[in-house]
């Protein structure tokens, strides 16, 4: 099954240091996933170190969203291992909750709760999951709203905000849980072009603070600027990965070349 060994590429941390377990944020080993009979993810090996910023690119249907959705168990994998923060994901609900508390996720369509105000969206999980007192949760929510530069919208409802503002709220909502890892599932794909920038700015500032991030996106400018590593997926498998500079300037695999030529024009 493991015809391709990835040990060489993943056993070393980006800085070339030797790896200790505490430095590993996510470890995916020989993972496979099927939708019914359709083999969506094949033989995925991926090790993400703390503070690492990874961009996953690939044509639609290549399984990149499915991969990051497996990491917080929105999708179930059938074979192989996924270890997040030292917790292996199994059917055990306790472990799943443990992992989800530490992993934030930002969705393509924001998925804010439309019946709650922005502030309530942000405080919901801290209050009900972490048991943070309401006043404290609200202070924290306001802090993160300021970080994403929309504190004045706190009392509005999601439906009253623009797409870019909603996505920034969604990021703030995840941050309120003080996650160790952030997953971004095409966060700018549903946005009008003029709003992409405001969301990317927030993501860049997060990256600069050393947040561990995995980001599925087509924003290659963002990849160049902040990623430590770019991963190219096709047909449910990791085809190629490299540092951004090398990845864009010198793609190796035929499929990567084809993909890059299509999206970079």
């Amino acid at each position, binding site marked *: 099954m493991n*015809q*391709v060994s990835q040990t060489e590429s*993943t056993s070393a941390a980006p800085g070339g240091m030797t790896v200790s377990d505490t430095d590993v944020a996510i470890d995916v080993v020989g993972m*496979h996933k099927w939708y019914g009979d359709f083999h969506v993810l094949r033989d995925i090996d991926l090790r993400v170190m703390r503070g690492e910023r990874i961009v996953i690119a690939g044509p639609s249907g290549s399984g990149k969203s499915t991969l990051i959705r497996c990491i917080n168990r929105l999708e179930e994998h*059938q074979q192989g291992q996924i270890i997040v923060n030292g917790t292996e994901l199994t059917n055990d609900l306790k472990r799943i909750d443990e992992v989800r508390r530490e992993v934030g996720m930002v969705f393509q369509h924001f998925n804010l709760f439309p019946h709650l105000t922005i502030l309530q969206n942000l405080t919901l999980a801290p209050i009900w999951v972490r048991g943070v007192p309401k006043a404290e949760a609200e202070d924290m929510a306001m802090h993160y709203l300021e970080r994403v530069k929309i504190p004045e919208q706190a009392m509005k409802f999601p439906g009253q905000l623009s797409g870019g503002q909603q996505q920034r709220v969604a990021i703030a909502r995840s941050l309120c849980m003080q996650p160790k890892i952030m997953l971004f599932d095409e966060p700018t794909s549903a946005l009008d072009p003029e709003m992409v920038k405001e969301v990317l700015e927030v993501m860049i500032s997060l990256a600069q603070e050393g947040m561990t991030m995995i980001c599925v996106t087509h924003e290659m400018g963002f990849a160049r600027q902040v990623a430590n*590593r770019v991963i190219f997926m096709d047909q449910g*498998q*990791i*085809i190629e*990965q490299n540092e951004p500079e090398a990845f864009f300037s010198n793609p190796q695999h035929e499929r990567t070349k084809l993909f890059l030529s299509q999206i970079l024009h």
Partner: protein
Amino acid sequence: MSIAFVRTDMAPSQSPPTRSSGLVGWARKNLFATPVDTIFTIIGVLFLIWAVPPIYGFIFPTSLGGNAVAPGGTVEQCRVENAGACWAYIAARFNFFIYGFYPISEYWRPNIVFAMGAVLIVPLLWPAIPYKGINALLFFVVFPVVSFYLLNGGVFGLKPVPTEQWGGLMVTLIISLVGIICSIPIGILLALGRQSDLPIIKTLCVMFIELWRAVPLITVLFMASIMLPLFMPQGMTVDKLLRALVGVTLFASAYLAEVVRGGLQALPRGQYEAGASLGLSYWKRMFFIILPQALKHVIPGIVNNFISLFKDTSLVSIVGIFDLLNTVQAASSDIDWASPTQAVTGYLFAAFVFWIFCFAMSRYSLFMERRLNTGHKR
């Protein structure tokens, strides 16, 4: 050191591990996913074991391992203890359930009407078949007129058959078809009136629609059967079936108006404006631009309305008309076929007939809905 990696050969597509596919995987996922699921599944299976054999035994004849008396059986067989459904009784009174008291020698007349209806309605409902306009004209205008003279007689040497003798499924179909056919034009006018900005017309339409939608059909039928004769000039009598038809039509058109209004509101404003900018008059705009689109979108709604109407026609039995339900109810006191299962068998038969019609129509409505949705997206 480098993090670079390039896959040299592609991983082939494999079939999923057995526990996630095939029958076992299916059962694990759909029946035994959690302990609670397993408990529910076990309860469900026990329920099936408890419920299915008696039901099967009641419905299916002895030749299929049940206890029911097949058509052609005798009343004595139906009176045996633990006998199932008495289908022999249904077979014996079948003509009554279909034609009511219509003279046997004239059965060919309703039969022709049934055949004509079927021949006209199938191509009308089939989206791919062309000539919808002429087809609709035949079904909605020519067919009712021809059917009326054929059934009622009194012309071309046909023996007159007064409506008191009509009955059974025939009357159920007549009432629901007349109800829907008459209510479509009235409902459209009411819907347009409700959307109009002429205050008097709007108010009248709103009052009409809301009044009939507010009251139960049974009171409408009482009103039609008791008050209609009072409203007519002295000496003028109104046929009992016609009274029920008036009641059903008033009721149905109010509901249809609301369905059509939904279609009118769903149309983008641009359509109204485009019509106006072409310089068309109000009626031309409505008939050539707005209504064709609006009506197309509400076909599923109209069909659903028709399903309700079809079920509601059973209420005419309360004002003494022999529709399908009333013939079954009347026959259940037929002493010749008296048996413990007589009434139940009759209700099962009627339920089955109603169910077949309604279920088929609801599937059709779903089919049109999907078709319209995909058409819309493109």
